[in-house]
Each structure stands twice: as C-alpha cells, then as structure tokens.
C-alpha cells in the first residue's frame, strides 16, 4: 500500500506536469528594507496608544517607573523572568509587591493567580506599534507574558525599528535557532460580537509599554 505521503507527493507531481522543472517565479520585492518614517519613537508611541495600550517614556529611574506602573494597575504580585535588570527587581521588591520567580517553573494555577509580569523585548516596530518577544533573557517562557492580566514591557529605544520587514529580518536568526517568537500589538482584543472592538479577552487585558 502506498503511504499517504507518497501518494500526495505523486498527486502533486501529476498535477504540476505542465510546470517545467526549472520554472522559477520571480518575487518582485526587496526584503528587510526600512520604511521611511518621521521620528521612530514618536510614531511607535502613537501607534501603541492606538491599540488602547499605555505607553510611557522613561525619563527618571527605571525601577521607580516600573513600580509606579505596577501600582497604577493595582498589582500586588508579579512574576519576573530571569535576566531582568537587577535594579528593576530591587525596586519592585522594595515596593512590597510579591515577586514570583519562574525557576523552577510556576504552576499554571500560580501563574493565573499572579497579577502581572514585567519583561523586556527583542525588537519593536513603529509603524504597527508592535513589540516582539523571542523569549530570551528578561522575557521568560511564553506563558509568563500571557496568563497574568497585566504586562509591563520594557522597550529600549534602540530596539525600535520602522516596520514589519525590519522586525522579521531581526527575528530570522532566533527563528532559525528554533526559538518561539511572539508578536504583540496592543492588548488582547476581539471584534467577534457585531464587529465591535473589545479590548481584553484571554491575553493580558492591560499592556503597559515603557520606552527606555
């Protein structure tokens, strides 16, 4: 009996009998190009805000700003991935917010009872107001930035690129290395009821971006 695999491949070859073996379709596209924009950081801020998320430029002490953000959302417990700036961790500890580390990994139930998460990111894009996590140091495994209801994300100014092509280009090595990648544009949202947009379904209902 032919395997499904062999049969499907044979069907495909038969179906494509009219296509010469050396046929190549040109893709008229220059990959990875920056898009011309005015001030990248201004645009990034504006576009993140368009999704109903909070975005704030950090001018003073980073740790203090993170604490302010957490307290503003009524956070009493937070999960902090390994690799976060120790100054930030200290400031949070001193503010009396319960810190949960993820080594060993927190159970799903504990994560669900945790109010917030603070992470860094791998790259961000101005035109679409997107942050991208490759779940490296400071970002944690994927569930950390998903289950808690508040996500405070630290974006370094030099991580902000223009648009999708540059973000994808920056994520190619991590993807090739087999790392999971998560693209986040605003908080979780749905338009499933009468196409009326509701912010906050399953993912964090609050996204707070701090631009450092």
């Amino acid at each position, binding site marked *: 009996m032919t*395997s*499904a*695999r062999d*049969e*499907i*491949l044979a*069907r*495909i070859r*038969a*179906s*494509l009998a*009219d*296509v010469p073996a050396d046929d*190549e*379709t*040109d*893709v*008229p*596209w220059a*990959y990875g190009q920056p898009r011309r924009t005015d001030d990248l950081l201004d645009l990034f801020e504006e*576009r993140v805000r368009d*999704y109903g998320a909070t975005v704030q430029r950090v001018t003073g002490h980073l740790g203090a700003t993170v604490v302010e953000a957490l307290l503003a959302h009524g956070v009493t417990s937070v999960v902090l991935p390994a690799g976060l700036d120790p100054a930030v961790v200290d400031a949070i500890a001193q503010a009396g917010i319960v810190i949960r580390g993820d080594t060993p990994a927190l159970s*799903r139930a504990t994560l669900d009872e945790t109010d917030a998460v603070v992470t860094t990111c791998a790259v961000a894009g101005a035109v*679409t*107001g997107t942050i991208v996590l490759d*779940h490296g140091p400071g970002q944690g*495994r*994927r*569930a950390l930035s*998903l*289950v808690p209801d508040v996500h405070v994300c630290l974006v370094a100014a030099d991580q902000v690129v223009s648009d*999708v*092509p540059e973000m*994808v*280009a920056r994520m*190619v090595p991590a*993807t*090739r290395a*087999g790392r*999971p*990648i*998560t*693209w*986040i*544009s605003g*908080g979780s*949202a*749905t*338009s*499933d*009821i*009468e*196409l*009326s947009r*509701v912010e*906050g*379904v*399953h*993912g*964090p209902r609050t996204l707070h971006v701090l631009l450092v």
Partner: protein
Amino acid sequence: MSKRPVRPSNAHDADRLTPAPPPGRFLDSPTFPKQSKVELGNAVQRRNLYDAMRTIRTKRVGVTSEADDWEDLRLAGEAIKNRTLRHLDRYLLQLEESLTAAGSTVHWARDAEEANAIIVGLVNAALATPQGDQASAREVVKVKSMATQEIDMNEALEEAGIAAWETDLAELIVQLGHDRPSHILVPAIHRNRSEVRQIFLDEMGRYGRPAPDDLDSEPVNLAAAARLHLREKFLRAKVAISGANFAVAETGTLVVVESEGNGRMCLTLADTLISVVGIEKVIPSVADLEVFLQLLPRSSTAERMNPYTSFWTGPTDGDGPQATHVVLIDNGRTKVLADPVGRDALRCIRCSACINICPVYEKVGGHAYGSVYPGPIGAVLTPQLRGVASAVDASVPYASTLCGACVDVCPVRIPLPDLLVHMRHKVVEAKAHGRPHADDVAMRVTGKVLGSPGVWAATTKAISGTGAVLKKGRVDHFGPLPWPLSLWTNARDVPAPPNESFRAWYARTHHKDGSPR
C-alpha cells in the same frame, strides 16, 4: 440549517460531550438560490451583516491606503505563493525535513477521514500518558482553524469520546449556539449581542463555568464571560489542536495569527500540540513572512497588525508543549492544483476581504454557501475541492455578480471573477453527464426575484456604490448584474432594449412564473 433559533432544542445532546451542531451535512445543503431565500428572510442577520460589512470595508480601505507600497506587497504575496505552489512537492519535502529536524512529528493525510483518524489516534495517545494520579479529561482545546472545520474534526473527536472545545470567541458562540459558522474570520457575524447573551446564559453552564446570572449584552461583558468560561479549560489543557496560517519550509516554523490570545493559550499551555495544516500553507522562507504579516492583518481585521502572532519551531525546552505534531492534509487540494487556471485559488490566505466586500454575501450571509468557505472564495474553492456533483456545489459559482470588487481587495491577487466563470463552465460541462443545468437553477431564482418588487429594489440598491452597471433604475446593457439577476445574465449574453426599464422589459418578455415568453 433553515432555522436558527436562539434557544435550540437540546434533546439530541443527552449523550454528547459538546453541543450538537445542526443536523445534516454541508454537502447536502439546498442549492444556493434556495437557501439564500431562507437567509434573506432573516432580518436580524441582514441588519448585522449590513452594519458589520460597512464598518470593516471602510476600515480596510483606511489601513491599506496607508501603506504606500500596498500594490507591491500584493504582487510579492502573489509571487511567493505561485513560486511555492508551482513546486509544491519540493517545498513540502523541505518542510517535512525542517519540521522533523526541529523535533515535530509529521503526518500526511489524503482526505478528511484519514486526517481525523490520525488526530483521534494522537489525542488518545496523548491523553493515555499518565499525568500524575489524575485521569486526564477526555478533551482538547482548539485554536480557530479552517482546516479542522473543513474536515469536520470536532464531530470525529466527539464520536471518539473526546470533547473539542472551541476557544475563539466567535467559534464559541457558534458551538454553544448549536450553529454553523457563517464567515471565516468572524464566524458568528450573523448573531447580534442579545442573541449571544442568551446563548451564553442558556448553554455555558452545561459545558463548564456558567455565565454570570446578571450578564448583560454589552460586548465587553460577553467577552469577559467567555474569558472566565474558557480559563479553566486552558489551565487544565493537555492537548491543543491548531491550524497554521503559514508553514515555513526553511525552518519548520508554524505561524498562527490571532487577536484574542486564545491561540496563545492553546499553543503555550497544552502538553501536546497537534497542528492541522493544508498543504498549500507552506511558504519558502522566514523572510517571506514580512510580506504576509503586512498583507494579512490589513486585509482581514483591517488593522495595522493583529494583537498576537505566534511562531513556533518544534518543541522548546521548558516552554510550551513538549510534543508537537503536524498533520499535512490534501483533502482535494491536489485536485485544485491540477487545474492550471483554478490553482490560483490555492494562494488564498483566508483573510476574508473578498467576503467582506461581496454584495451577495452581504445580503444572504454565509450559510447559503453550504460550506465552511463562504463568499467569493468559497464559491470558487468549495466546488474545486469537492467537485460539482452536489446541488449546492453546482450552484455556488453562480452566487456572484461578477462585479469585480473581490479581485481588487484580494491581497494575493486571486482573479476571483475569472475563476467563478471558469467554475460555471465546469458546472455546465458536468451537465453533459446528466446533471441539472445551471441555467435552470439560475432561471428559477431569477423569476422569483423579479416577481417581487421588494427584492428587486433591494438588489439594485445593494450594488449602488459598488461601481456596477445600474444607473437611475435603468439598465442599458446586460453586463454584470447584481446577484441574483447575474445568475441569469451571466449565464447568457442578451442585449436589453434601450429606454425600457428592466422590470418592464422582463414583464414583457416573461411569464409570471419566470419562464421566457
């Protein structure tokens, strides 16, 4: 299918794990003209669709005109898909190799039955794995996926004693409402907020955490009820089933594009992840994603970017499912590929822009198409995938005005009107083998519509603003007319006498029952 009560009868649910869908198979649906008459009588649906489609069209124009290289992106999207499809065997072998190297297990399925058997086997095996002393619940959580709907996977799992829980909000509304999806992106678009509230109040408690007693019909509160209802299912999930928007041959990376975070929950929290992927979803390289991650969100939800996109490349140590399976399904796709004209339809990235712009869809909604794929793409793809043997499949290629709006919005430039005409030819050819002539179908519905001034007026109004041919209530040529008149005019090519209104002309030349004088 003909009735969708808000409070469905649950009599047949007694021995089921999940809410029963409406009885019967899609394939046995009435013809498009017949079912569309029923759907046209559903005033709630018509109003919902009218409002929703207008909103989304306007938004789409906004975000696509904002990208100054939109047309270049469309050309690139078209070219990447053609490049892949024209050597699909090669790219699939590369994909298989990369997936395997990344630690995923690849399965191939010729058709729905084979796919379902594989999936049931994988789920059974995953649930049999001891999980401490607790027996795993016989259930899976699902990411919204067209492929799993196409193969009717939920019912196959139900028969195997496994409950498949839909987690996308709209799919949840459809599932709890004992209903069928009517749109590929917003499957519950035919339901309004008060219907959704009633469904949640009536049904949630039967299958898990009940909706709060004081639930009102505000979308934000309805979404919150869904969040709570599904959270317990996510937190205990052992097995998740997803589709994939893209499968990257170079790396074995799968990509899911979503809004709510239910996708991330499934992709991240389960121990075993099974992804059901149509063979046409493969793209060559990671870099190609830059084209599609611009085209897809702007065309589908009309946003610059959708809230969440997940890439995964096999299992990751200490993060997410430790077993990842990919089921590659044919289920008619190689048949579509065999037709050098029709194969363009395989470029489809399921964005739904063609559905949202379609004046016919806007009037009748998705159920009349008798398939999980409605609108222009459904009218082309369904008869390609399933053949034109059934009454409904032979009728859907006529469910179009050929007004051309769909081809302009399609992000991968599928020539939908050409393909509709192409499929009409196939239907006509099939007649030679003893099937009912499409013209007969067209004639019957045309007569009905023209016999009713209300419907005719609504039909002419439907296309004003779409750039179609009717002006000031006069018809000066029978080019592409709006559906359902197009059923007739597009099947024939008849000049209209000048200075005579179409209705007057029709009355003069036709009997009351619609037959020509």
